[in-house]
């Protein structure tokens, strides 16, 4: 009896569905779906058959020294991806390449917002020293599948996608650089604290959405020639100056209309006088950057720069400059060297 009732219910549902499939509206919907799929397939075929657009890099591929030109190069690459071009990153003939640029390149190429899921390719530089740096960086671990190249990585490169702050990674990065540059594995507190604060700051400056977790990248390159360890830390968020909250009404209005450049806020930022936009415990926040600034004066730090939005700050020389391009994110770069 129960089985018969179940069968009747099934038949009712089935016949209702079949009737729906016979309607004009249903048939039209299905026809459009087929056309759409065909269109997508043809577009994909066209894209695959499309040649790569050669995008020649500037000779000096040092983001930290030649910031505007390198930024223009990456901004132009992004424009090509937006135009649905396949991009060939032509860095064969470059004459200078620094670890910071490799970090930026990997972070960009792994960011779907940058590549728009487009295809890209490229070869290592021809110049032997630059080629060695490129292969040892671990670049191919992130952007290619070539097993041969993967095995050559000898430097520390970390991409964080889960937590914002990773004390174990900070410690590993400290030991990795200190063993090489300072010839010790005893804690060097300023280095560890800087790394943690860089990670923590991705919370404040990396994203416009308070709850969104931002990816960050850390690259430590041990340079045998100079006995230095070069640290690059970056997030591709909104940048420090885009995320600051200005309390004063007049200053706020001036910033909004562009009458007040970002360089105007550098002093306050470095002194910890910029208000965090995160409401929770706001009164006790804002000490991370001042701690980084204070630590950068240790002699072990040979170079210390921060690039965010259209501002480049040199913490060692206590200078800053306005850039022509906007870097959407924050980039910290420093080198450590034995002072003995």
């Amino acid at each position, binding site marked *: 009896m129960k089985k018969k009732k179940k069968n009747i219910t099934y038949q009712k549902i089935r016949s209702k569905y079949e009737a729906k499939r016979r309607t004009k509206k249903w048939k039209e919907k299905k026809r459009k779906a087929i056309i759409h799929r065909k269109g997508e397939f043809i577009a994909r075929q066209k894209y695959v058959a499309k040649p790569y657009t050669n995008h020649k890099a500037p000779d000096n591929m040092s983001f930290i020294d030649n910031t505007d030109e390198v930024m223009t190069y990456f901004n132009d690459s992004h424009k090509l991806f937006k135009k649905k071009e396949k991009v060939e990153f032509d860095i064969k003939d470059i004459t200078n390449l620094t670890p910071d640029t490799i970090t930026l390149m990997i972070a960009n190429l792994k960011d779907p917002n940058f590549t728009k899921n487009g295809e890209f390719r490229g070869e290592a530089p021809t110049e032997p020293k630059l080629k060695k740096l490129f292969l040892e960086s671990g670049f191919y671990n992130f952007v290619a599948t070539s097993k041969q190249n993967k095995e050559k990585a000898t430097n520390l490169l970390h991409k964080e996608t889960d937590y914002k702050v*990773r*004390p174990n990674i900070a410690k590993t990065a400290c030991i990795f650089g200190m063993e090489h540059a300072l010839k010790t594995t005893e*804690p060097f507190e300023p*280095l*560890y*604290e800087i790394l943690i*604060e860089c990670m923590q700051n991705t919370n404040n400056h990396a994203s416009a959405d308070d709850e969104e977790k931002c990816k960050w990248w850390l690259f430590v390159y041990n340079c045998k020639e100079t006995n230095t360890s070069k640290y690059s830390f970056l997030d591709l968020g909104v940048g420090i100056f885009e995320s600051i909250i200005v309390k004063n009404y007049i200053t706020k209005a001036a910033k909004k209309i562009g009458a007040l450049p970002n360089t105007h806020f550098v002093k306050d930022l470095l002194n*910890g006088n910029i208000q965090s936009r995160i409401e929770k415990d706001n009164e006790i926040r804002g000490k991370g950057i001042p*701690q980084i600034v204070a630590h950068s004066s240790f002699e072990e730090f040979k170079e210390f720069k921060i690039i965010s939005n259209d501002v480049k700050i040199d913490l060692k020389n206590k200078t800053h400059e306005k850039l022509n391009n906007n870097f959407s994110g924050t980039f910290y770069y420093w080198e450590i060297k034995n002072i003995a």
Partner: protein
Amino acid sequence: MEIKDKIIVKTDFSDTPGARYKSDGPNSGELFLEKFLTKKFNNAVNGNYKILIDLDGVWGYPSSFVSGSFGKLSIDFGAEKVLNHITFKSDDNSIRLENILKEIKNPKKKDQ
């Protein structure tokens, strides 16, 4: 006031203090505050004794960790009370001790 309790950060908690909040990552100031600091501090206040916090042997005390733990404790109970019941040992580094004391005495940043 007699010292009757102790927190050795390196062995009791971690040699790698981390972020401000537990949601930010491991070994946070918030975790240290909840797991050790508040409990032991309350016991010390109730028992009228001091606790010794041994700061040595760690990789560093990031400002976010310090303000998320010692800063919060100071805001909740007041700097005077905190300093009456907590004493520190920092043989490795005197600057870090100065920074922690500064945070306790003035946990809120300057107004703009």
